[in-house]
């Protein structure tokens, strides 16, 4: 606009001036005018560029404003405070979460009548006494916590008191809606939300940073079944402690795991001593006769013995001051399957000697029983094994004395013996769908098949009869280990089994520490009398939850027929070629 105006009126003016002024001056004025005009043009151009730029930006913002809109959309998300991530079970049910609360603090200097204030506060807060509050207020500090995490009712009560110098601060608190149900697995945090035990501790940094929940492999329904049945078994047999562990044999996932007595992770400081101890992962135990599953698997897999081969079990073995004897002595030569079903210590020891200590040690190491388990819990026990692996150790280890292992690693090893020989590291963290579980082949499929047969046979007609559940093809082995610690006589009764035996899906280990027999069990408390029935109760309730369909047992049991070793060693060859048992 400016340019056009000057262009239209200047020529006339210039003509008039030229007519009046002298030539020299005229020339001078013309110079000046030219100069001024140039300045105008330049500044006008600059303005035009600047306004043009603004115009372009205006169009850009108005029409193509993706960037800005994005920013506005995200504003809502950014407002929620960063909280510690949740822990959920395999079905997404919350096991641990963080809730907003209020915490009470005082500016002690600002409180006027401290005695009166303390008394009024104590009335609103039943957990604190007047003396305690008064002591805090006397410190004269500008900031003292009085109580963390008030309940809504306490918040209301304190707020309505309106004492100057007493303030609230928004806080958050870790809450475990299921309480004791998975206390040993989930663990707990301190008052500031730092993980002190269990998953909370193992994944402390991740839970603090990540937004999405940590998904565990356990199922609260199964936890409940195991816990309830173990609780009633402990009561029924007046046991000191008890634990149960349910593993998926195809992935190593821990489906449920309980250790009793337990504690409430919402109030970990109030837990009685010993209740925080997780028997399944922290405790190491000499498992007793259930170890014979491994001893037999070792002998079969190494080709030391076949099912029909016999060992001399006529008389107890004496080594130095030790005496190895059978609880149900048969006084004759026993075949490998008889040794298993009658749970013969003598026969097992002879079988282990035939294999040799070196092979036994290597085998147990291969099954992951000589080093700590890799389970995702900080409370992991260190297995105990003899420093010098002498023949006497080899013999006692064959029936589960002399090597102490954690139930979790033992369960994983047994899972490998029944699932076709694949050892999975037991895990509590649910894998992303589609990721195949890692595993190592530790036994041949053939050996595994024979172990399945032996475990099933033991439940049909051996020491594990009370573990049978119609329809679910249970197989397993009993264990009653003498506890070596202390002078009191106590046993650790256990049962480990798998189901359904024709195609195992789950392994369940039940342990009762120092149970006492009752009238029902003729006052005995062996694994077969106390742990096996508990096992059966759990399987009966858990199988429908696990989606294991009941089958016609007799039809499946007939398929084991080719395994029956008969009387002579020569019969062994007949099942070597037969793979139909699966």
């Amino acid at each position: 606009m400016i340019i056009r105006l000057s262009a239209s009126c200047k020529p006339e003016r210039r003509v008039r001036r030229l007519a009046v002024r002298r030539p020299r001056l005229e020339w001078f004025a013309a110079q000046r005018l030219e100069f001024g005009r140039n300045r105008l043009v330049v500044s006008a151009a600059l303005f035009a560029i600047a306004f043009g730029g603004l115009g372009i930006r205006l169009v850009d913002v108005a029409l193509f404003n993706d960037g800005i809109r994005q920013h506005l959309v995200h504003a809502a998300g950014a407002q929620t405070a960063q909280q510690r991530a949740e822990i959920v079970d395999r079905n997404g049910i919350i096991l641990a979460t963080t809730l907003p609360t209020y915490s009470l603090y005082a500016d002690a200097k600002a409180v006027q009548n401290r005695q009166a204030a303390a008394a009024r506060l104590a009335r609103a807060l039943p957990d604190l006494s007047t003396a305690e509050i008064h002591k805090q207020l006397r410190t004269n500090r500008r900031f003292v916590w009085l109580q963390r995490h008030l309940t809504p009712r306490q918040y209301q009560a304190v707020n309505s008191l309106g004492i100057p110098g007493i303030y609230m601060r928004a806080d958050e608190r870790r809450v475990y809606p299921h309480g004791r149900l998975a206390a040993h697995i989930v663990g707990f945090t301190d008052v500031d939300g730092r993980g002190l035990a269990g998953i909370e501790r193992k994944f402390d940094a991740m839970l603090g940073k990540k937004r999405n929940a940590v998904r565990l492999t356990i199922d609260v329904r199964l936890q409940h079944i195991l816990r309830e049945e173990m609780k009633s078994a402990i009561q029924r047999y007046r046991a000191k402690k008890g634990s149960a562990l349910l593993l998926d044999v195809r992935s190593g996932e821990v489906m449920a795991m309980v250790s009793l007595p337990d504690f409430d992770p919402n109030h970990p400081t109030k837990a009685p001593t010993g209740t925080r101890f997780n028997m399944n992962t922290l405790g190491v135990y000499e498992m007793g006769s259930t170890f014979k599953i491994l001893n037999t698997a070792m002998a079969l897999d190494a080709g030391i013995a076949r099912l029909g081969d016999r060992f001399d079990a006529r008389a107890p073995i004496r080594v130095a001051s030790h005496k190895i004897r059978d609880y149900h002595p048969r006084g004759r030569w026993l075949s490998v399957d008889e040794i298993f079903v009658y749970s013969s210590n003598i026969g097992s020891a002879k079988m282990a000697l035939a294999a040799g200590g070196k092979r036994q040690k290597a085998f147990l190491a291969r099954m992951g029983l000589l080093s700590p388990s890799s389970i995702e819990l900080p409370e992991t026990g260190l297995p105990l094994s003899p420093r010098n692996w002498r023949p006497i150790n080899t013999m006692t280890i064959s029936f589960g004395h002399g090597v102490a292992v954690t139930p979790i690693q033992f369960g994983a090893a047994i899972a490998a013996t029944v699932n076709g020989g694949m050892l999975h590291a037991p895990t509590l963290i649910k894998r992303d769908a589609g990721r195949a579980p890692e595993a190592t082949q530790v036994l041949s499929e053939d050996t595994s098949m024979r172990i399945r047969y032996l475990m099933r046979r033991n439940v049909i007609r051996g020491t594990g009869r009370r573990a049978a559940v119609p329809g679910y093809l249970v197989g397993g082995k009993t264990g009653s280990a003498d506890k070596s610690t202390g002078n009191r006589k106590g046993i650790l009764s256990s049962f480990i089994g798998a189901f359904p035996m024709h195609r195992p899906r789950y392994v369940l280990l039940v342990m009762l520490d120092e149970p006492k027999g009752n009238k029902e069990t003729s006052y005995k408390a062996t694994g077969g009398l106390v742990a096996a029935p508990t096992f059966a109760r759990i399987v009966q309730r858990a199988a429908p939850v696990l989606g294991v369909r009941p089958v016609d047992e007799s039809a499946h049991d007939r398929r084991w027929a080719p395994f029956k070793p008969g009387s002579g060693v020569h019969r062994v060859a007949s099942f070597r070629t037969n793979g139909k048992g699966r």
Partner: protein
Amino acid sequence: MRKRTIIAIVLIGTLVAGLYHLKQQVQGVERRLAGVNQAIARDRQAIHVLRAEWAYLIRPSRLARLSQRHLKLQRITPNHIRTFDELPERFAPAGKGKRVGQSAKTGAPR
């Protein structure tokens, strides 16, 4: 020239009025956005708390207690579970056969 000046003034006036109006509107919308964002945050927090409460209410022990009190359900045994193969064959759809067939279908334990 006067005409042009007047046009320019009117134009500027309109633009200023328009801009003012727009700015007012934007401020209003922004205030609303802040409100909505706050409401979202509040609702999220509420959902979060309610989810925790839900987890507390569906404790298996509580459900077992409630089911015992209010439902006449037995504990499931292997006998309660049947497959489709085990169901009797459907009757031929002749005459009253249709009714029989339906009852067999709906009466089957699932």
